[in-house]
């Protein structure tokens, strides 16, 4: 069997006396989508932030299969290496596009930032790639010089995705990417995400409290409660035949139209 892209071993994080998440382990293979579900305060975002380097966990290892040096513990990397990784092979899609975009920089500049960050110094090339990516996330090319402030919520979220994917990352962290969007926009975004994930063979860790989103996108699922992973398995298996009492409650509380 091939090596996993991401191997998480015993991640724990405490906020003073309170538990953020405790002893979470899982592995993620290239091209695989992992859904992390659970109620508010269950430690989903803490886990995601620990994995992506935004937070330093108290214990545990986050092993990433780097292009050049094989499996490396990203927590032991130098800050400069980790930041370079998060600009190239990793991406982070925030729930609120305001957190992931530069609101006072044009759409083209937003997409081009990562390219310039890794040393691209040819305006024409940057512009061409920005146009290309706007097309791929279904934003009209004539909006390339408009600021995200003039974009709708759905467009902003798609722009954030384009900005993150332009350097061809292999692993994306998503924190509630469809939160705050209305149903039809959400459906379009999910469609887009699904095709991008398949096309670019992306590995994704997606945090959501929306089981429908998990069902659509995720291959595997992990259910969290009070900072612990209480159940994990194939998405359909977990949703159709939940074992843990809390998972049964969670699946049972989804509203039917």
């Amino acid at each position: 069997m091939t090596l996993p892209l991401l191997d998480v071993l015993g991640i724990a994080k405490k906020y003073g006396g309170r538990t953020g998440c405790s002893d979470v382990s899982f592995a993620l293979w290239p091209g695989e989508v992992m859904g992390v579900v659970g109620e508010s305060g269950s430690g989903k975002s803490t886990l995601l932030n620990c994995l992506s380097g935004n937070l330093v966990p108290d214990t545990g290892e986050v092993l990433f299969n780097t292009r050049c040096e094989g499996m490396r513990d990203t927590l032991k990397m130098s800050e400069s290496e980790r930041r370079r990784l998060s600009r190239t092979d990793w991406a982070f899609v925030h729930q609120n596009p305001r957190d992931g975009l530069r609101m006072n920089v044009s759409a083209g500049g937003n997409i081009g930032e990562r390219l310039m960050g890794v040393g691209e110094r040819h305006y024409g090339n940057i512009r061409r790639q920005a146009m290309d990516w706007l097309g791929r996330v279904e934003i009209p090319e004539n909006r390339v010089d408009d600021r995200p402030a003039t974009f709708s919520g759905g467009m902003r979220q798609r722009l954030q995705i384009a900005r993150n994917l332009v350097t061809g990352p292999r692993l994306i962290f998503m924190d509630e990417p469809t939160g705050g969007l209305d149903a039809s926009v959400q459906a379009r975004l999910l469609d887009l995400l699904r095709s991008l994930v398949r096309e670019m063979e992306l590995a994704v860790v997606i945090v959501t409290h929306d089981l429908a989103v998990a069902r659509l996108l995720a291959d595997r699922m992990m259910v969290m409660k009070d900072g612990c992973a209480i159940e994990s398995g194939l998405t359909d298996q977990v949703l159709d035949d939940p074992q843990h009492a809390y998972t049964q409650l969670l699946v049972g509380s989804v509203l039917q139209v």
Partner: protein
Amino acid sequence: MSEYNFAYLDEQTKRMIRRAILKGLAVPGYQVPFASREMPMPYGWGTGGVQVSAATLTPEDTLKVIDQGADDTTNAISIRRFFQKTADVEVTERTTEASVIQTRHRIPETELKEGQILVYQVPIPEPLRFLEPSEVETRKMHALEEYGLMHVKLYEDISIHGAIATSYAYPVKVEGRYLMDPSPIPKFDNPKMEMAAIQLFGAGREQRIYALPPYTRVVSLDFEDHPFDPGRADHACELCGAENSYLDEVIVNDRGERMFVCSDTDFCESRLNGNGEGGA
């Protein structure tokens, strides 16, 4: 004279500033924090430059002060008088005769020589400030040499104006390492920064000093397909006829007629008085 210590500041303060200057010279382009003092002039009038000059001056020095290239503007005159009064040093308007030159927003046209010191007044020392408001983050970006964001600014310029529209405080990279704000000099002056004189930069309100030793490599940022262009008004000076100097556009009467004249008054006068090219 006896009411003031030499050059206004007390010796301990000058010592502290000199240490910051030496550190700045050792790490060209790096912003060294220093304990900026209150000076008897408002922030924005060159409190940083004045403190650096005060720490640099010796009784044997000859001081020149320019503001936008001119020796005779309010800012230049008040700072020059300040040091006449507190340090009793020789002052001059001639670039070639000065050993210390404090400047606001220009580099003299006359090429500076070894042994001279050019002191810049800096309002905002952080070139990334308007792109990244957090000082913690910008310091980290300097430490890790993450300067992609500066090119985002230049990208925005080209996408909006068709060319890099930044015409002053044009960002430079020093010795292939630190990104530096050259203070609000016109980009026309950027190529002159690789010079024989020592260049010191003082930002009083922001409490930062940085420096360039002589002959330091200073490169203006650009794109491969939009190279750096120093730019210059397409005129000759209407007083001295110079075609290679930086020009001010001056409105001369109520009918809105304009003329272009050298912004460096010493350079212009020297040429008018027949002292040859560059006011030697």
